[in-house]
């Protein structure tokens, strides 16, 4: 936590967390900690186990092994869960005939909060004018806002958001980004899962990257990207197809950018130069680029075994 940040959040700890659905290992021995006062991005491709991990934290899915705790306690052991943790999981979990305010009053009563809190959170998410409308008529973006309002009903110390920008328009995404930063600024713990990297790169302080249910990297955004800075190479060649074949053979992760451009991740000029020379590949250009979150993400989640160069080394 940065100096001067209010201390109202709680750490979230995942320790050896695993979940198997039959033979499928959705989450595999996942261990990491999320600190208060920061926005932590929980990043991974679709199907990488992000949602399952968050649902295990909230007691919705039973772990096969390991623990997930908030402030050192299981979620279901918390005295007042909605005052401790607010969760945005899916924008479809509403009764369509229920009005927005009724839904929030239900949530307020479940958590032992005053009914007036429903109107406060409606205002917070900009839905005051729609309080009496039935949720069935809401757009996806409005449902996301209502889901967020539900999460905030108990003014929680910890906020967990699973793909919260799904369905939001650019304005809504910008609003959500500011809102998450504002909550973290108050010292709360914010854990947000997403596969929208460009969006996350502008929002998060820390990142946890998972792939196939396994931790690939964890650290501050700067730590993670700096670990790959200088290791991304871009080559322009009339023999791009042959270059790709050579890189595949050498187990080097790459992305075909254009018909004559290829980006190579996690390699140095000293590694790739001699290799291409030995294969007599004609190069028009070989440049050295800094890594961004997307580069890191792609190199870590390509399933090519680059976990060993990640920030959790």
């Amino acid at each position, binding site marked *: 936590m940065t100096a001067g940040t209010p201390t109202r959040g709680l750490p979230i700890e995942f320790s050896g967390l695993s979940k198997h659905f039959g033979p499928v290992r959705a989450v595999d021995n996942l261990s990491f900690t999320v600190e208060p006062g920061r926005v932590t991005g929980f990043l991974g491709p679709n199907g990488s186990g992000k949602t*399952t991990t968050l*649902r295990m934290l*909230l*007691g*919705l*899915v*039973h772990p096969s092994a390991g623990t997930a705790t908030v402030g050192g306690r299981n*979620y*279901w052991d*918390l005295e007042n*869960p*909605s005052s401790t943790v607010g*969760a945005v*999981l*899916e924008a*479809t*979990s*509403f*009764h*369509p*005939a*229920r*009005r927005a305010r*009724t*839904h929030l*009053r*239900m*949530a307020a*009563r*479940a*958590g*032992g909060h005053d009914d007036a809190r429903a109107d406060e959170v409606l205002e917070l998410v900009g839905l005051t004018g729609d309080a009496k409308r039935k949720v069935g008529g809401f757009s996806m973006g409005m449902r996301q806002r209502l889901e967020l309002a*539900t999460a905030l009903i108990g003014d929680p110390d910890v906020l967990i958001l699973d793909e919260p920008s799904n369905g939001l328009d650019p304005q809504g995404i910008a609003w959500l980004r500011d809102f998450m930063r504002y909550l973290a600024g108050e010292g709360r713990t914010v854990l947000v899962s997403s596969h929208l990297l460009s969006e996350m790169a502008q929002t998060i302080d820390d990142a946890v990257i998972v792939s196939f249910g396994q931790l690939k990297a964890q650290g501050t955004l700067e730590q993670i990207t700096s670990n790959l800075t200088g290791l991304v190479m871009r080559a322009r060649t009339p023999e791009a197809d042959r270059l790709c074949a050579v890189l595949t053979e050498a187990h080097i992760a790459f992305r075909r950018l254009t018909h004559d451009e290829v980006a190579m991740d996690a390699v140095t000029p000293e590694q790739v130069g001699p290799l291409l020379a030995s294969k007599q590949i004609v190069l028009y250009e070989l440049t050295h680029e800094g890594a961004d979150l997307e580069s890191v993400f792609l190199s870590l989640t390509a399933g090519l075994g680059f976990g060993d160069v990640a920030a959790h080394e």
Partner: protein
Amino acid sequence: MINAIRAELIKMRSMPGVWVTFGLALPLTVLVILGVLAGAGGFPGHTFYFVQTLRQRRELLGAGYFGIEILAPIVGVLCVTGEYRHKTITTTLVLTPVRTRVLAAKVSATALWSIFIALLTLVVVAAVALPWNAALGGVTSQLTDQVGAVVPGLLVSAILLGLFGLGFGTLVKNQVAAILLTIGGTLILESLLVALARAIFHYNLNWLPNAAGAALAGDIARGFGGGGGREALRLLTWWQGGLVMLLWGLVPLTIGYFTTFRRDVT
């Protein structure tokens, strides 16, 4: 626990299906009142007459039972299956993560709503049956002096019938299947089974839900609303009927809790 019950009640209050059951209780009760008054005997040329026998008086006072028998299980089914149908179970369990507490709150809310329906039918009886019976020549005390004999059975039946629906709703999870199982099962399948058991095995099959409920409700369940083969059955005693009804609710609820309700919500 109180918070969870309050949340369940507000959920039920905002479910159109639950209000439909509430609304149906009114015409069904009036229908039974009509039937009891029409069957009360009287002078030739008169369709309706005031109630005379003790059983008729109790049937008139408990005219809501027929509706409750159908509607209370539906309330129970809706209370739990609606959560899965609309995926609100995720929000429910995030707000109240202890699942036994959620289920206990649902039992309480269903019981309260079933009592509301029973009380509504009593209001209809007071508003329609009492003045009508008096206008036909009866006296108010014919009904009021049976309150102690009828109302407790009516209320307890309503609660246990609601629990019965909740139990099967928890077990089956699919709303349509659960309603078919509870209502279709008791009104159609049970009658068939009772008739078959009697015809083939000479067995008095009196422990299925409908018959057990009738035993608990007593006289009010045997007339217009309760015909359908019960007359030929040797019913259990009221407390045996209550116990069996309780089991018809608790057993599927317990099995449903362990097989369905405790499952991962993915």
